[in-house]
């Protein structure tokens, strides 16, 4: 490297290293260090796995952990199933102006704060809400119905919140599929279903994978939707982290929870990438 390229290289490398080092890597190491210590008495700490032991033996913690994982997977699956036909419609069935408008319509909710979206569902689903009134008016219910604060309401919110992150990658990959390839599939005697299975879905796989990863991450890390729409007994893991950190000021246990969440998300993302033989760069970059 020549001298001036060397200087340029160092100048460009510095912000990146500062950013990743000071805001991502060191904080996570620090969080890990805090999670493996135990408070003996005021100001005296000892290294131990006590926090993890507590997290893994206390039934409430463990149940919440797995519940969060399973529900996030479920939310991802539902989002994919709902989003795929719509994305296909936008990418391949709609043409010209209609296509652009539909795509824009999908983007709009993303530009609105998650809080507002959740608030909308609260107005719709609560006891005095719109759906309840509608049911009474239609004679399907004779008293106000509470539809908020249960798993179903939470799922509706989770799917809604992350829909966009499934639709955009799906539309992008499906659009890149040449119409003539689908035509060739039919021309060679394929039925709608076999074309879908053997041509469309394999082609859309990169979009499916990146969509699923992002949606899963967003569901797992969601705090607002489970708090506002979920019931008292449908605790979410992020709520437990918040409780330990802010309400109880038990940072050691909170950090351990945070680390567990991080490991869980990494394992599932890694597993998804392994299963489909892709790399993080391809999927995210």
């Amino acid at each position, binding site marked *: 490297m020549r001298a001036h390229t060397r200087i340029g290289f160092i100048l460009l490398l510095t*912000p990146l290293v500062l950013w990743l080092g000071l805001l991502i890597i060191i904080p996570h190491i620090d969080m890990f260090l805090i999670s493996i210590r135990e408070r003996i008495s005021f100001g005296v700490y000892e290294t131990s796995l006590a926090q993890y032991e507590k997290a893994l033996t206390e039934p409430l913690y463990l149940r919440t952990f797995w519940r969060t994982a399973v529900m996030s997977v479920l939310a991802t699956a539902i989002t994919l199933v709902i989003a795929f036909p719509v994305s296909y419609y936008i990418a391949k069935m709609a043409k010209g102006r209609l296509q652009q408008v539909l795509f824009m319509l999908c983007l709009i909710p993303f530009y609105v704060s998650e809080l507002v979206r959740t608030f*909308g569902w609260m107005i719709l689903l609560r006891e005095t809400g719109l759906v309840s009134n509608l049911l009474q008016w239609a004679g399907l219910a004779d008293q106000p119905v509470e539809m908020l604060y249960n798993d179903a309401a939470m799922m509706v919110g989770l799917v809604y919140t992350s829909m966009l992150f499934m639709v955009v990658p799906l539309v992008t990959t499906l659009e890149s599929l040449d119409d003539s390839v689908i035509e060739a599939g039919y021309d060679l005697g394929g039925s709608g279903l076999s074309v879908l299975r053997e041509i469309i879905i394999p082609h859309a796989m990169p979009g499916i994978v990146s969509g699923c990863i992002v949606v899963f991450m967003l569901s797992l890390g969601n705090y607002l939707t489970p708090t506002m729409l979920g019931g008292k007994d449908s605790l979410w893991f992020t709520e437990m982290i*918040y409780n330990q950190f802010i309400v109880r000021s038990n940072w050691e246990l909170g950090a351990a929870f945070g680390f567990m969440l991080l490991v869980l998300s990494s394992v599932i993302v890694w597993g998804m990438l392994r299963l489909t033989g892709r790399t993080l760069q391809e999927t995210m970059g």
Partner: protein
Amino acid sequence: MIPTIPQSRSFRLIYGSYVLLFFLYLALPLTVVAVFAFNDSQFPSLPWEGFTWNWFFGDERPQIGVFHERGILRAVGTSAFVAMCVALLSVCVGTTNAFLFNRYEFRGKGLLYVLMLLPLVIPGIVLGISILVFSSTLANGIWDLAQMDIQALRPGLLLVILGQFSFITTIATLVITARLQKFDRTLEEAALNLGATRLTAVRTITIPFLMPAMIGAVVVAFLMSFENFNTTLMLVGSDAPLTIAMFDRLKEGSTPLLNAVSLLLMLGSSLLALVVILFQRR
């Protein structure tokens, strides 16, 4: 299943209605929020008590509108300040990152690129607590060493800005890198060949080329920061940005005031998004 392949009428009908239903599902919560901003009642719910602008412009109890509600206005100001800082910082670092990854080959580049992507797959809450933990470790360390209390390292706006910056930078980097990859390096060589220095070539040729992506990244970063909740929740001090302020009020029970704020938010962000789209198309 493309228009050139004949489909049965009923299939088309079912498919069409499914898509229609989907868009209703997308529009429903937002519409409801918007409509109830005009309900002349203390609650954003039925029954409909008549139309009013009070939740925007009202200045007497119990209907104090957005534009007379100090708390909300201050929160908007805080959010805008934070979003401004985050947008500028992340686009600056995003641009230097883009140049680094695009222009240099060095050992560990692949690893660094993966590290750069990581903030996208770390849950926002975890990002928030890790920065909270580290900054307080730092603050405590400085206190132990020099008996100085650095307020900036305690939960507050600086930490909120850094927390949001930590993952929004990844997005800015991706947006700007994508554009830089489309840049034809010979344009820069042509500039050198015509007598420009390296820096002048970048300033007069490369940066103008990147401008649409940089402006797009500024707007996206601004919106993401404005709407961020998870990371902010863990790092917020006494000055609450808008999302946190609204969340606190929502927990206490909502009035159509929140609908009014939400509607303004929607309008604001759509306007910004529209500006970007128009700008990109030009």
